[in-house]
């Protein structure tokens, strides 16, 4: 959904001139933003893109006057067309809520947990001067404008009773209350599932058209940016490095960093992203030169003298680089060619199964003595992994993918069904035998830092599995751990540090080293990339792929991101509501006739558009109703009566392609196309 017209070119709303923010510490002021010059015009739609630590959120907060203490403006100006000059790291009365307003990343945490939606909206409306007796109807009106039906029920509700998507809609409604001229959306969809994300993005675009406010979208995701924004500003280490119309910046990036970041993005149907070099520095550690030098192939003496200034926010495409990439035509073609096509591991014709899961069922009991409830987490789940194969499990929050992983790891006990690893049924083993089996099955978790004992050094963490199985003496163990840590790309000086002193990417590498130190047959990775920045993610994807080819372990990879799974060339198992709905064969990304649920997931990926965009009603994920039929029935356009009553059986539709759908004969061709410039 690209903007039809470029820049409505309204009058200027906010102008930043050489604006800087720093955090005073005992060692002097640590800069977080340096010399930002940027214009935001009325009705414009601008995106601020960057990785964590780039300063994009600090900039968003500085604009509205909410820089986290003890940060403060250290130079430059923020000029508001309606107010005149003022610098703004301190709170400015009359700006927040009136001239600009903001919605945040975690919608549920953005709302007070113990106050009803009605009273929270009441406070905001009171501030806007709405008389007491009119507040209720005004609030209902606002809720309807963000497409929340049943406003009176929402007003009575508390945040914990609403889904994340609904909370974000409420937050947007509150932001609309002041009729501010600028809405700052700080990663508004990052915490949401992909289908909900799509609906919120669509809502923001629609509201912008209806109300005519300017939208400043802060995001790390180019797909989201392409979806919503006309203009994009790329940030790196506290500076703006590139600015221009979205189509141009994304289609023909001029700064080497922007190009590398775009290439690091996993793309549906393409191979592994191009491996970026190095790691983004903290804004505070960069000296007065181009911060990208250590990672740049074109860097020369000129670059280290002083950073190239970014021409202040004119509409033309510009980059803060002495050696900008020249226009080379269709980058997307170029980049696609540069991507390695996913290597599908060659499997023997009739491979012995490494992991065989059959008819797994797991029910969780929730609630206390009163009102006991149980939730079916897994229903009749069957799945195979062959040696050397990559199997991806995809699905949204609560689909049962993590429970499945825990069962295979022996951390949860299934109610029924079998889990065979090399033919040995895990569910029939005693505690000590399960432990022995763990030598062959290892795991990497989503939050690598939390998965390591905070009191221990990295080298000791990696040795731990060897110790547990009494392998080698102390020297041999340390030697093997060092070897493994080097193999995953960690330098010697990090070995003696504790997990808390490493970056997320480094922690995830160490966790990978720990998992592989025993040379397991099966590796289970539960969302290993989701806490990482784009470049760290691309690097880790390469590492995982290389290690898999080298050691030949079977890989069970859990991810919410279909693009990541296809990039790694995995067979994909799609889950919803504790059931497997579809199994897609590896490497056949052109496969366009898929289960309606998979179709909805694919179409929701920002930056892609199908022939017909159906986003559906994505709130059903929060409902935990017991279903005898298909879990997707309430959101499915093709559903027939039968779907709600009987769960369809898995049937093979093409080689290696299985799905459970009553309407499998009538599915439309999806015709997914990447939005032109991505």
């Amino acid at each position, binding site marked *: 959904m690209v903007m039809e017209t470029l820049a409505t070119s309204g009058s200027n709303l906010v102008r930043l001139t050489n604006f800087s923010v720093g*955090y005073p*510490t*005992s*060692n002097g002021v*640590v800069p*977080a933003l340096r010399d930002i010059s940027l214009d935001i015009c009325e009705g414009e739609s601008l995106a601020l893109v960057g990785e964590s*630590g780039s*300063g994009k959120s*600090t900039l968003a907060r500085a604009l509205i006057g909410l820089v986290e203490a*003890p940060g403060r403006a250290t130079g430059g100006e923020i000029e508001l067309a309606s107010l005149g000059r003022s610098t703004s790291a301190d709170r400015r009365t009359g700006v927040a809520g009136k001239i600009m307003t903001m919605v945040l990343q975690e919608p549920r945490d953005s709302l007070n947990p113990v106050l009803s939606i009605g009273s929270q909206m009441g406070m905001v409306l009171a501030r806007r001067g709405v008389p007491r007796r009119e507040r209720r109807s005004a609030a209902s009106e606002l809720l309807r404008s963000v497409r929340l039906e049943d406003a009176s029920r929402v007003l009575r509700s508390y945040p914990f009773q609403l889904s994340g998507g609904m909370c974000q809609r409420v937050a947007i409604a509150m932001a609309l209350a002041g009729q501010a001229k600028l809405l700052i959306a700080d990663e508004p969809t990052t915490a949401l599932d992909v289908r909900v994300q799509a609906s919120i993005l669509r809502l923001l675009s629609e509201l912008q058209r209806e109300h005519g406010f300017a939208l400043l979208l802060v995001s790390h995701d180019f797909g989201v940016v392409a979806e919503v924004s006309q203009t994009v500003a790329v940030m790196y280490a506290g500076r703006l490095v590139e600015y221009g119309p979205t189509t141009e910046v994304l289609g023909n990036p001029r700064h080497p960093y922007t190009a590398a970041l775009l290439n690091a993005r996993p793309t549906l149907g393409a191979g592994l992203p191009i491996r970026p070099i190095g790691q983004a520095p*903290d*804004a*505070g*550690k960069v000296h007065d030169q181009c911060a990208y030098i250590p990672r740049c192939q074109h860097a020369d003496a000129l670059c280290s003298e002083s950073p190239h200034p970014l021409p202040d926010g004119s509409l033309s495409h510009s980059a803060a680089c002495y050696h900008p990439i020249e226009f080379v035509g269709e980058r997307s073609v170029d980049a696609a060619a540069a991507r390695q096509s996913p290597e599908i591991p060659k499997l023997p014709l009739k491979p012995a199964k490494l992991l065989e899961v059959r008819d797994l069922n797991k029910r969780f009991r929730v609630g206390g003595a009163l009102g006991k409830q149980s939730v079916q987490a897994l229903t009749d789940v069957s799945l195979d992994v062959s040696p050397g194969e990559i199997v991806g499990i995809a699905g949204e929050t609560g689909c049962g993918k993590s429970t499945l992983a*825990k069962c295979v*790891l*022996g*951390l949860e006990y299934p109610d029924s069904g079998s889990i065979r690893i090399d033919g040995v049924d895990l569910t029939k083993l005693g*505690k000590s035998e399960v*432990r*022995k089996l*763990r*030598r062959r*099955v*290892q*795991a990497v*978790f989503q*939050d690598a830092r*939390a*998965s*390591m*004992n*905070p*009191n221990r050094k990295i080298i000791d963490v990696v040795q*731990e*599995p060897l110790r*547990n*199985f009494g392998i080698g003496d102390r020297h041999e163990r340390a030697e093997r751990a060092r070897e493994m840590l080097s193999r995953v790309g960690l330098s010697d000086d990090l070995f003696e540090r504790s997990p808390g002193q490493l970056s997320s990417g480094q922690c995830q590498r160490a*966790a990978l080293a*720990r*998992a592989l130190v*025993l040379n397991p047959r099966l590796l289970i990775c539960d969302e290993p990339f989701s806490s990482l920045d784009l470049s760290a993610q691309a690097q880790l994807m390469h590492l995982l792929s290389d290690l898999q080819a080298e050691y030949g372990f079977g890989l069970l990879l859990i991810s919410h991101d279909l693009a990541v799974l296809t990039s790694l060339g995995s067979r994909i198992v799609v889950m919803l509501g504790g059931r497997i709905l579809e199994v897609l064969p590896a490497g056949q990304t052109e496969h366009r006739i898929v289960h309606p649920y998979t179709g909805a997931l694919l179409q929701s990926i920002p930056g892609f558009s199908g022939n017909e965009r159906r986003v559906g009603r994505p709130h059903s994920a929060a409902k935990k109703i017991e279903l005898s039929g298909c879990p997707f029935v309430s959101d499915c356009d093709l559903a027939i009566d039968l779907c709600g009553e009987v769960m369809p059986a898995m049937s093979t539709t093409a080689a290696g392609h299985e799905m459970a759908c009553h309407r499998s004969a009538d599915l439309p061709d999806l015709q997914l196309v990447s939005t032109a410039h991505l």
Partner: protein
Amino acid sequence: MLRVVAGPLLNRFAARTNFLIVIGGAALGLILLAVSIGPLVMQTDALSFERGKELLPPSADHWFGTDRFGRDFFARVLEGGRVSLTAAFIAMSLILAIGITLGAIAGYLGSWVDGAVMRIVDVLLALPPFVAAIAIAGLFGTGLQVILIGVVTLWWAWYARITRGIVLQVKERLHVDAAKAAGATTFSIVFREIVPLAAGPVIVVATLDLGSLILTIAGLSFLGLGEQPPNPEWGTLLSEGRAYFLVSPHLTLFPGLMIFLTVLALNLLGEGLHERLDPYNLAGRGG
């Protein structure tokens, strides 16, 4: 960004933490030294009478003055401290032993064991300690032993709850799952992953609680429910001195001051240890 800012801030905190630990620890050490070897090296006996020297104010001969029987009050305060602190330490050891054991068992085993232990804990915790101690003294008579038994009976419940809470919390932490997945034995999980993380917070709470324990025991003795005269104990001394506090305020000033300083030292130490040993605030204490 956070990391850049956090570094120096943490350094400053560490400096403050050390300062608290050093001051609190030194003061506590000094007091412990005084009350443990003081009575041994003192020339005067805490129980010996001296006629004609009743109720003297503090002087070079008698640092804390004398009491109504002419006994050297400094000697009595030191001896009283020995009784008070010994009682508090014994009580705390018993409380820790019972509370940690039951709490850890309840937390680790869960199910009905947990239910049974926690039900008792809930009942005991609902009883305000002072009210319960008074009731116990009312039923079983007065005396330091009765007070100690009463205090231990009630107080272990706090530690059972804290220990259980920590064990449950640590048990839920990802690195315990990760250790399990990496093939760690149950023994190794308990003693290498859980106990080291749980020990810190318990030590912190115990340090701070030792102060409340001293206050409670002294308070009950002050009311005449604990140690009985003529044996000195800080609370008993205060209560004895109370009758004379118009003419000889030093008899109430010094025992109270000693209690105050001891508890203050423990608080400082606990405060310092809290930042040092319980970075995740598992003990759930305001900092």
